Each structure stands twice: as C-alpha cells, then as structure tokens.
C-alpha cells in the first residue's frame, strides 16, 4: 500500500517536473552553457602560461573534461526545488495536509525530489558521454562503463544534497526564514563539491578534510570517475563513504523532524 502511494507521488512528481521543461531548457541550459564556457576560458588561461601543459599531474584536455563533467554533475545533484518548498509549507502551515495523509512527509518529499531529478538525469549523462567521447581516446563501450561507474555516485550525491536541503528546510520549525541558508549552502557547494576545481588541487591538509566530508559526492567523485581523474578501483570505497554519510544525514534529518513536529502549529482553515 505504502509503496503504491509513493509510486503515485513519484508519477505526479514527474508530471510536475515536465511542466517546467521550457524553463529548465532556457535557464538551466543557458546557465550550464555559460558556466562551462567561462570555466573553460579560465582553465585555458591557467594552462596557457604553463610550459608543461600539466598542473598537479592533470593534462589540459583532462582538466577541461573534468570541468564539463563536474558542472553537469553539480547541476544534477544540486537541484532542490522540492526541499526548499518544504520550508515554505512549514511557515505557511500547509504541512498539515501531509500529517493527515497515510504517507510520511520525508517519503513524500523524497519521491517528489527523485522525480524532479530523474527527468534531468538522461540529459546530463548524454552530455557527459558526448564530452568524454570528444576529449578522451576511448571506445563507446568504455564511455558507457565510465558513466555506469559514476551513476551510483551521482544518485548518492543527489541523496546527500536532498538530505542537506531537507534538514535546512526543517529548521523552519524554529526560524521564520531559511532561504538564506539554502543560498549559503548552494554557493558553498560550488567550491566544496569540487565544481570549480578538482579537490585534489587543494593544499594537502584541506584535501584531507574535504575527503572526509560528503560534499565531494555532488561533483568531484562522479566527475573524477567520468574524466578519469579517479580510478574506477576507488569506486567501492567512495560508495561506502557516500552511503555512510547518507545514513548520518538521514538520522540528523529524522531527529530534526521529530523535534520540530512537536513545535509545529497551524491555525485556521
């Protein structure tokens, strides 16, 4: 019964996500194009002053591929319209609707968020496949293997960002406005996720700290696998790390919900 309910929510979520496809194509498409373009110009300028055409052991072409894949990965894992709406629902008292339904709120939110992201997943994987084929001297079969290797990290990256976003939105039980925290998180992720530069370029102490944190799974690890910066043999360890963080964040979000729902009050019709 519960599974059927969540599947129905998922289908509704896909319909809702497709309603915004024109908006996605215009803003997200243009944002991606300009973001990748500006980053490519920057890295071209960075490498053009180097006689060796290699920085920290990364050749220019591989760095460009990483930039493309990292921007695509973060655009996929970071989208979070559903989680942000939760804060507004708490603030306006609309959360009461979910309390009366035979589904859990977190389950409802995750089904809607999964639907929102699943629509863009094929687009991102397709663009990444084209970029890999152009830059690396690999066969189509190898491209598919690289994408399949990165896919579980992308899915876990989506889950990490979803849990971070939902946790921030649940702070709306105590705070009037939490949109600023969402914006702070999104801006921080440009750097912390490795979208702007591979985290392996950080000074060693900072790189060690970032390797402990969950943000790397939003861009650095999936893009690193796709661009060949991270060997596929490292995948099992990265998956365990990402799963561990999903577990920690799930517990934190559940605790926030339990504490917050006791404070929640909505009045009137």
């Amino acid at each position, binding site marked *: 019964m519960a599974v059927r309910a969540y599947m129905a929510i998922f289908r509704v979520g896909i319909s809702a996500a497709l309603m915004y496809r024109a*908006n996605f194509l*215009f*803003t997200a498409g*243009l*944002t991606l194009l*300009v*973001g990748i373009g*500006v980053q490519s*110009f*920057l890295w*071209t*300028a*960075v490498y*053009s*002053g*180097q006689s060796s055409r290699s*920085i*920290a052991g990364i050749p220019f072409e591989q760095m460009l591929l990483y930039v493309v894949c990292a921007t695509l990965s973060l655009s996929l894992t970071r989208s979070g319209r559903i989680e942000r709406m939760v804060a507004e629902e708490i603030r306006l008292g609309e959360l009461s609707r979910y309390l009366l339904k035979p589904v859990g709120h977190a389950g409802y939110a995750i089904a809607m968020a999964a639907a929102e992201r699943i629509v863009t997943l094929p687009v991102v994987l397709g663009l990444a496949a084209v970029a890999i084929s152009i830059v690396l001297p690999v066969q189509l079969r190898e491209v598919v293997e690289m994408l399949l290797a990165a896919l579980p990290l992308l899915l876990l990256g989506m889950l990490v960002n979803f849990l971070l976003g939902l946790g921030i939105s649940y702070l709306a039980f105590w*705070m*009037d*406005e939490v949109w*600023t*925290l969402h*914006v*702070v998180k999104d*801006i*921080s992720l*440009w*750097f912390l996720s490795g979208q*702007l*530069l591979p985290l392996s*370029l*950080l*000074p060693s102490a900072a790189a060690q700290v970032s390797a402990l944190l969950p943000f790397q799974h939003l861009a650095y690890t999936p893009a690193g696998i796709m661009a060949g910066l991270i060997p596929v043999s490292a995948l099992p360890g990265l998956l365990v790390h990402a799963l561990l963080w999903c577990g920690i964040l799930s517990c934190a979000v559940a605790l926030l919900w339990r504490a917050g729902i006791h404070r929640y009050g909505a009045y009137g019709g």
Partner: protein
Amino acid sequence: MEGNPVLFYARLWGVLFSQALSREMEYRLHLWLKFLIDVVWYGVQLGLFGVLYLHVPQIAGWSREEMFVFLGTLFVVDAFNMLLFSTNFWRIPQYVLTGELDFFLVKPASTFWLVFLRYPNVASLLNLLVALAVLGYALAQAPPLRWEAVVAYPVFLLNGLACMLAFQAAIGAIAVRILAAEGIQQTFHILYQFGMKPDSIYTPLVRRLLLYVFPMGLVASVPAQVLLGRAPWELWVAGLAIPPLLLFASIRFFSASLRWYQGASA
C-alpha cells in the same frame, strides 16, 4: 518636487534606507544570514583563485596580487549593486503581476528611480565594508599606484555600477513587457558570470563582445586595470564612454516599456 533634485532624491533614499533598517531590525538573524550569503560568495571566489595561484604564477597576465585587486573591485561594485538595485530588480515581475507598479507611476518622483531604488538592501552595507577591506588588503600587497589611476578609479567604479544598472534596467523593461519574467531575470546573473573574471582570459572576439556589446568587462575588469596602471587607452575610452550611453539607452527603453503596462488587471 521642489528645490534641488539631487538633494530631494538623496533625502528620499535616506528615508527609504531608514525604513528598510527598521524592517530588518525586526528579524536580526535574517539580516546576518543575508550578510553571510555574500561573504560566502567572496570566500568562494578568493578560495578559487587562492588555490589556482598555488599552482601557477600568473593567469592571463595577472599576478596573484593583481587578481586580488580585481576581486576586491568586483566585490565593491557588486556590494553597491546589492545595496541599491538588486532587491528591486527581482521585484519587478511582482510589481507588474500584482499591479503594484501603479503606485510608482502616480508618485511625484521618477518612476525609474522608485522601481530601482525603493528597497535598499541593508545587509549589503555590511558586505560593502567587507569588500572594501578585501580591496584594501589587496592594494597593500599590490605594486605602488599612480596618482592619476587613483583619481580615475572611483569614476570607473561608478561606471561599472552604471553598466550593472543598465543591464538590469533593460531586462526589467523586458520583464514589464512579458509579465511572467523569472526566467528572463536569470539571464542577468548568467551574463554577469562573464564579468566575474578578468577580460583577458577570453579569446579576442569574446573579449571585444564583453567590452563593447555586452560590456560586462567594464564592471570590474577595466576599473581594476585602470587602478593597476595596465589599461591601454582604448579601455580608458570604453570605460568612460560606454556605461553612460548604455545607461541612458536602458532608461529610455525602460520608460518606453511602461507604455505596455496595463495596471492591476494585466
């Protein structure tokens, strides 16, 4: 309006700022969080270039010290934009959809001025202080400056700000015309990404586009080059001449767009 218009608008902005400050004081945590947003953005930009300069001595002819002067300039112009115009720019579709623009049209002051300056962003005043501190720190590390560059720099900063207002006014004018305009407003921030890097990282064609057609290069890159004494004469001419012309054209375009506005029933 009677008397000196500059004094009138300065007094009016003072009153509006005072009202905004009163509103923000009701939610002080929110004020600090809004301040935090741009501080984090500054941190990300400084962090990116800080790490890059660990691996290379120069980027497109800019040393680390010069790049930080560029970033300080970018932060100062951005903080002024956030303080004065940005909040208002994002409200334009709401003004049009709800008919709130009616109230601006009937007030005894410039409609353009009211639309773009009605709501100052108090938190950005704190960001401006941080931006000035970053610029001051960068200048302390940079080579000595020439006096004519120091004198010209505020004018180029003002013109960089004028460029940002001109872009927002042009997009605001389109927003008045097409009603559901959230997507079109995003184009400003998308184009602004080009202005967040020095113009010399781009290819010659893109660079010319960013200096003369969509002059995002005039926002921070040209002012920083003028201050560092590395701007050739054509950048001086472009940086002085284009922003006022662009702003004039955008104000005319915005005023013309108001003819399409149909009030609350739109």
